[in-house]
């Protein structure tokens, strides 16, 4: 399946004996087809649930989502087959563009209550989603270029902090607490991977804990505080903020072992469940397909992350490894936060279930992200080193 062993390893310069690495066909054959298969399976489950959410109709969600997925897959393969070096070279540029979009949303954003989208005419783009991708790219590039001896110095953390801090604050202003936290979490994960000393993480954690009350006081909106309080005590507001989580738990729990059957979920079909096609789509799946359906979905997600780890192990550059792991972590965070949220383990924050929830931007950015990972899989992440000392 994977003709990996056909070419000499780590060789950018010397062409392979059996195949021409420059040929498109060669690259396509080297795609990770396990990963593609799992992605298609996950998205397919998504279509089915969206079909059910519309009471057995392709309108208004499932059809559009499938179309987007098709476009996304083409983009993924395009991104994958274009030279991996290109992404390394343009990492900061991509970051700059994403940041520009994020700033634009401040001025021209559309959306009710919060400004999160830029209208592109044919679809609404959510720059905070693309920012996750761009941030991982930029940080991967940064740590790749860093001299190994410098890695453990505190000053080297200043550029990543700036790279993360600016978009995080912008997103928080929108306001989108969930995405801002994911951006920070991604940066922390990437920094951890890059090899920062343990004790510095411990220190960082302590500082974060200390900053918590300040953030609570000054950074969070009333409704966000409300959500956290409601999360801690759902009975506090059973008809308001607590309603979502209560109805979601009822939907999940009443699914039982085998579920109520396709298009048979009473909670969701009778619209007790809010946002059943976006943030709470997992509840619908769990209600209709039960514990086994939930576990199957979780297994597919774990499989996707596992594929990413396998690819990572084959990559030969810091950039590739950090990029693949960063993107895998992004995917994990989406899935984990969303599922934990609908199960009542985390406060309700607007995080979709990746590739399953209805929504254009997250679908496209996730697939482009997988394009980067596939690109790393194809090209093994062979890159020149350009250490630039930071003093």
């Amino acid at each position, binding site marked *: 399946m994977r003709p990996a062993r056909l070419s000499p390893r780590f060789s950018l310069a010397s062409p392979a004996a059996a195949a021409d690495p420059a040929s498109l066909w060669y690259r396509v054959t080297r795609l990770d087809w396990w990963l593609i298969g799992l992605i298609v399976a996950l998205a397919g489950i998504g279509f089915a649930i969206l079909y059910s959410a519309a009471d057995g109709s392709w309108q208004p969600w499932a059809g559009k989502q499938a179309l987007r997925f098709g476009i996304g897959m083409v983009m993924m393969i395009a991104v994958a087959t274009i030279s991996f070096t290109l992404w390394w070279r343009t990492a900061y540029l991509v970051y700059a563009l994403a940041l520009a979009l994020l700033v634009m949303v401040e001025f021209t954003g559309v959306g009710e209550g919060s400004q999160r989208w830029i209208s592109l005419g044919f679809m609404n783009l959510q720059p905070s989603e693309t920012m996750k991708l761009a941030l991982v790219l930029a940080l991967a590039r940064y740590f790749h270029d860093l001299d190994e001896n410098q890695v453990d110095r505190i000053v080297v953390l200043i550029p990543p902090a700036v790279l993360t801090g600016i978009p995080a604050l912008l997103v928080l202003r929108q306001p989108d607490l969930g995405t801002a936290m994911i951006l920070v979490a991604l940066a922390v994960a990437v920094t951890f*991977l890059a090899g920062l000393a343990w004790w510095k993480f411990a220190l960082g954690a302590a500082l974060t804990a200390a900053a918590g009350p300040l953030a609570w006081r000054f950074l969070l909106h009333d409704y966000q505080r409300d959500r956290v309080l409601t999360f801690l005590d759902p009975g506090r507001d059973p008809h308001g903020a607590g309603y979502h989580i209560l*109805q979601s738990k009822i939907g*999940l*729990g*009443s699914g*039982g072992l085998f579920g109520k059957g396709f298009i048979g979920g009473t909670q969701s079909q*009778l619209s007790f469940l809010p946002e059943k096609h976006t943030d709470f789509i997992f509840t619908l799946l*769990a209600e209709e397909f039960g514990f086994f359906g939930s576990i199957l979905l979780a297994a597919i997600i774990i499989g996707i992350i596992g594929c990413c780890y396998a690819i990572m192990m084959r990559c030969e550059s810091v950039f590739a490894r*950090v990029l693949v792991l960063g993107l895998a972590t992004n995917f994990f965070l989406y899935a*984990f936060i969303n599922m934990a949220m609908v199960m009542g383990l985390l406060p309700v924050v607007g995080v979709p279930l990746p590739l399953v929830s209805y929504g254009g931007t997250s679908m496209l950015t996730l697939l482009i992200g997988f394009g980067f990972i596939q690109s790393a899989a194809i090209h093994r992440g062979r890159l020149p080193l350009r250490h630039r000392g930071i003093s």
Partner: protein
Amino acid sequence: MNRNGPDRQSQRQLGRISRRAMLLGAAQLGGFGLLAARMYQLQVLEADRYAVLADENRINVRFAVASRGMIVDRFGQPLATNRTSYRIAVVPEEAEDLAALLDRLDRIVPLAPEHRQRVIELARRQRAFVPIVTHSNLTWKEIAHVAARSPDLPGVEIAATDERVYPTGELCAHVVGYVGAVAKKDLTGDPVLALPDLRIGKSGVERVYDDALRGEAARRQVEVNAVGRVIRELHRDPGKPGATVRLALDAELQRYGASLFGEETGAAVVMDIHSGEVIALISRPSFDPGLFPDGISQVNWDRLLNAPNAPLVDKAIAGQYAPGSTFKMLVALAGLESGQITPKTKFHCSGVLELGKGRFHCWNRGGHGSVDVHDAIVQSCDIYFYEVARRIGIDRIADMARRFGLGSRLGIDLPGEQPGLIPDKEWKRKRFDRPWQIGESLVAGIGQGYVLATPLQLAAMTARMVNGGQLVRPGLLAESAHPGQAEDTLTVSAQALDIVRRAMIGVTSEPKGTAASSQIPHERLRMGGKTGTSQVRRISQRERRQRVLRNDELPRQERDHALFVGFAPIDAPRYAVSVIVEHGGGGSRVAAPIAADLLRVAQMRLSQNQPT
């Protein structure tokens, strides 16, 4: 490993990344382990609980009020029944243009502008599938007009509801009672009580037998969505219409009895002396129970509540009066039982009895001469009973009165019954913290002073005296299991009861009897009884010395109450009666004729219409 690529440092870096990646991967797996455990908890361990919650979410029970049972008299004549009343509602989401629809509707059945405004207001506020009532209390004819135009009226719904009607109106108002909308204090948590169409019994039989009359509401289990729209019906329980309650009451006797009172106020009770069945329970004046089901207006309510002759009070069970001379039979029984007097014991009546500094007068100022117990009852001699009361004391009298049902509630199946009052030494000490005076025994001996009884108690007392000493209790139902079925026999000697019964026959039969002129002129229907005149005002010593004013010289509210208790027929007693005419004057003149007519008609109706 590397031939031409990255240096060793980079290799170490890659190694570190993969080591840390393993840690990160382990953490992520752990995260999914947590999620899986939570799924297991919710979907396997607690699945049953959440399944119930999900059903509670989606399953809603809709009720439809059962039609209320009828109340009929012993012959099946309806006393409370239902009339179908029609109502129109519009469903905004089905109406193409609500304003135009209301205009078209208005042309068929007029709609007040302010009400129309309210409908439009409601349509804006409520969910579009919730019907809004536009007209209620429509006649069948009006509804027929609307139904005929129904193709023209999309979204118009016609619904029928029951309306309570009382064919006998005020005649049986106190017994039958009335229904009304559920008040806040009636709510018990039963969801049926929250239905706007429900009427519940507020007084009388309507209240006491409300459960049986109400039946069981129809229940429809429906599946609803989050906004309450019905998606489909899951289960239907047709419920049960209310049961018909058949009373022992004879509506015609009731009507006749009420007519006997004319403009007078008061009460009358006719009951079966063996079963306790109450066949007439009259309280004058009365009120129209039809004012209540739709909610009585404040003006009408205040007028009823504040009327000087208390039309809302059921005087037959809640009116407490001094029994006057009707009480003397009990004193006679107590005297005979105590052994202080025998049938042969005679006392001399000179018209006045002196006790210490007090003077106690007989109603007959000239005196009755020498009288025994029979004559004393027949002629209602006060002096004789002063003497008996003086000898036996209040406690023996009170004990006898209680055995005949006085001084406490009899437990008739009606709300609001009053206990009356039978005083004794103990009572006086508790009530006034004073010792009992002998003079008070004398006053009690002729049914005055503290003694109070309700007309119902007087009827029951009479029944017990003439039925051979059965402990009969009055009840309203015409059922085999009479509430008044004799459980016990009174501990009174049959001989003494016989003396009293014969004296009561003497009252109406002997020339000197106080009610001789009121005897029923049919040989087989003749009655026995006892008159009573209960003093409402106190007669002062000064007035005694000058001249006691006659009743017709007094303002009405100071005139005496007229009483009569009786039974018929005299040979095989069947019915007991008690009559009180408020401020009517003498019992022999005013109350006895009413009692005689009631007993006569009761007996005649019995022979004509044998109840099934």
